[in-house]
């Protein structure tokens, strides 16, 4: 058995195609991004090595930092919205009839393409015929705003469909975690006279903590690199009011044809995502993880 299963040719045949592919498409580009960032390059002509010029320009680039600020704001909103999702998942896990159906309905927006969702929400926010302003007018708001054209509102107007799209996904994860908590714990607490809120706060919440930490990382890192809806709905506008890090990178590379600078932004994005993952993991480390058998 060992002899057959340690045949090097067979192992290479099974592993190498995928390994080479992931090296070529994921790992080599990551290294190249960092390297391109050291060059002045329009993507087609010759590269000119400029050392850390792009990176030092990036650190002084107000437009970049404002886009980074927008990404961070989205990260904060996404992380806070997790509380709402957790509450809904708690309600779902109360063993109500139909909770399985509800859970599935919530997931539907997550399965649809960002382009379709973005186009749909463009219509929802349409200044005169969109359902948002039709509704506001029907309850007596005289001049509802043009949501996506208003620099002070546009970012929040974009957050709503982003949170809407991901809600079902997080509810699904929390629901699965809460379902894993043995009912015996809950029953024991009830015998001791605990009410529903005490059970949720003192028993379910601590036991779901590991999963909650994972979702915080997912929400924060996912927000920091967020791109899709913003690119389709506003393309960073009006006048940079909704630019985020990934869209800033895209614009530098594929609109301004500054591939060197765009790569520097891309590399920065990678570093920020990895650091954010590391910090959140550090911050949420508990000394004694709670076990339930």
């Amino acid at each position, binding site marked *: *058995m*060992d002899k*057959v*299963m*340690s045949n090097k040719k*067979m*192992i290479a045949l*099974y*592993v190498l195609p*995928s390994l080479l*592919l*992931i090296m070529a*498409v*994921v*790992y080599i*580009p*990551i290294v190249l*991004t960092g390297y*391109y960032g050291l060059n002045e390059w329009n*993507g087609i002509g010759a590269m000119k090595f400029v050392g850390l010029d792009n990176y030092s320009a990036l650190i002084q680039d107000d437009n970049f930092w404002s886009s980074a600020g927008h990404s961070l704001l989205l990260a904060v909103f996404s992380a806070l919205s997790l509380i709402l999702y957790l509450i809904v998942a708690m*309600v779902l896990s109360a*063993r*109500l009839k139909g909770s399985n159906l*509800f*859970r*599935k*309905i919530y997931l*539907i*927006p997550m*399965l*649809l*393409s960002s*382009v*379709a969702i973005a*186009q*749909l929400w463009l*219509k*929802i926010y349409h200044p005169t*015929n969109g359902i948002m302003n039709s509704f506001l007018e029907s309850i007596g708001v005289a001049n509802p705003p043009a949501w996506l054209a208003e620099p002070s509102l546009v970012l929040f107007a974009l957050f709503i469909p982003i949170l*809407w799209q991901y809600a*079902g*996904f997080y509810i699904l994860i929390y629901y*699965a975690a809460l379902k894993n908590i043995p009912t015996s714990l809950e029953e024991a607490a*009830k*015998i001791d006279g605990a*009410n*529903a809120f005490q059970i949720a706060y003192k028993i379910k919440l601590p036991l779901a903590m590991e999963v909650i930490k*994972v979702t915080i990382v997912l929400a924060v*890192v996912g927000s920091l690199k967020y*791109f899709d809806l913003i690119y*389709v709905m506003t393309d960073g506008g009006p006048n940079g009011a909704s630019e985020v890090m*990934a869209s800033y*990178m*895209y614009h530098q*590379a*594929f609109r301004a044809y500054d591939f060197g600078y765009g*790569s520097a932004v*891309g590399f920065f*994005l*990678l570093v920020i995502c990895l650091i954010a993952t590391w910090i959140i993991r550090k911050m949420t480390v508990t000394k004694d993880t709670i076990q339930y058998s």
Partner: protein
Amino acid sequence: MTSTTAGQLGGASRGKGSSVLLKLGYALLYIVLIVVAALQLFPLVWLLFFSLKSNQEVFNLPPLSLPTNPRWENYGKVWSAGNIDTYFLNSVWITVVATALTVVLGSLVTYAITRMKWKGSSLVLGLFMVAMMIPVHSTLIPLFSMFNKAGLIDHPLSLILTYVAFNMPITIMILLGFYYALPREVEEAAIIDGCSVNRMFFQIVLPMTGSVIATTSIINMIYNWNEFIFVNTFISSDSFKTLTVGVQNFIGQYTTDWGAIGATLMISILPILVAFLFLSDRIVEGMAAGSVKG
């Protein structure tokens, strides 16, 4: 079911008014669930309605009025106009090819990692898993220039290669759990009988993993069907565009015809909705397992 729930909820509060209170609390929970469901579905219902209306109806009637005279011709019109049929077929074949490749290659790797004995197997697994943490956007510029040099810009192969590579980690992760749990007695017996590795993999192991292959396939299909940024960056000619980018361009040209836009969007999401109708359990399972994918 209802009575056990009621018993659980009422455990703490006993007395005269408890059953009324209980019913109230119960109703409150349902109201929360229904409100959330309405919020999630409402935009999509509105989309379906305006996809069947004319501009006049959209502009003059209340937004949630039923389309009195459903204009199914909106769908026929956009299907043949503006290349939507080409985009749709491109989406189908690219999704299918990329998914099949990912699942087969991923199964081979998972088999080698869980069953074969070799140095570096945990390192290789680590490489696949770490790849999940890398933001797609940070690879975009180098991928563009690499494909450019290889003559693969504006070629569907650029999409298939990136889709397979970026979905490989999550596919392997879902497969791993299943392979570890798979009993090995059959394989051991097959080896003793002189079965070759290839025959064992393709004729014994692969058929046993049918259910997990279904789960990974459907998740891959959803990701591939919806993918936007790579198509948008690598593909420029209409004959190779997929639905996501095609829809984006098409709508750019028809910004004023609400019925046509609605119908186009409905066509683009319909395959996913139909798949969801029949395979919701597998999709839920795969999404939960895929929670680490960014």
